[in-house]
């Protein structure tokens, strides 16, 4: 974790700023993202992408929940979302086997999958909600509804 944080902090400012606008472009609403947080976000994506390229990794997983926020100041979900959209398989919360399952699913379907929790069940409609904290690739978004890139999961969206 410290390796990635150090790498992110050492990414050149011009690379970070150029990447920030590209990374935020797919979202309909980025009003919560100030320049400082946007730079942290972009630097993290670049650091992870560089790290994977140097190691020739097809996939990786990030110990994002807790550790990253404390060490770096932002959650990793948005970076995971972006890296998956770039075709670099990136799993959440250090889940190696979940990340391997993503690889299998992608190879069999040709579509990048969604690593998720199973958070609720409705017996009457026989439905369940699959939710995870902002890590799905935006290529899976329903274009009929707005997408948001936000600083936190805490507030309800009005």
């Amino acid at each position, binding site marked *: 974790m410290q390796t990635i944080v150090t790498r992110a902090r050492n990414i050149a400012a011009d690379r970070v700023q150029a990447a920030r606008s590209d990374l935020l472009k797919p979202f309909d609403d980025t009003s919560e993202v100030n320049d400082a947080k946007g730079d942290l976000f972009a630097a993290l994506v670049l650091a992870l992408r560089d790290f994977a390229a140097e190691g020739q990794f097809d996939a990786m997983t990030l110990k994002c929940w807790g550790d990253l926020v404390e060490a770096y100041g932002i959650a990793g979900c948005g970076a995971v979302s972006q890296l998956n959209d770039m075709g670099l398989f990136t799993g959440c919360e250090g889940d190696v086997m979940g990340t391997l399952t993503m690889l299998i699913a992608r190879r069999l379907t040709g579509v990048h999958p969604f690593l998720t929790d199973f958070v609720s069940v409705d017996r009457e409609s026989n439905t369940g909600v699959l939710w995870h904290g902002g890590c799905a690739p935006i290529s*899976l*978004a329903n*274009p009929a509804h707005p997408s948001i890139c936000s600083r936190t999961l805490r507030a309800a969206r009005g």
Partner: protein
Amino acid sequence: MTAGFALKPGRVTVLRLGDDGQNLRMLATTGQSLETEMDVRGTLARVAFDSNVVAFLDEMLSHGWEHHLIMAYGEIVPELELLCRTLHVPLTLVK
């Protein structure tokens, strides 16, 4: 930083390669990702299960499956059956 949106509708396979403490194993079921809105922050899909959703949840909880699942667009059960047979990984298919 987090992304927030509702995932697109479509046929899905929900799967998980896990282990029972000794050996690999695969869990799968199918369903339909429904048109839905982002009523909580984060990324989410509302899925109508082909199987009984409570039976699927019971399988996960009763047999110690890991809590992360993979939602894949498309129906890939025959391919998973072939893959698991080839790799000698038992497949638990909840129908």
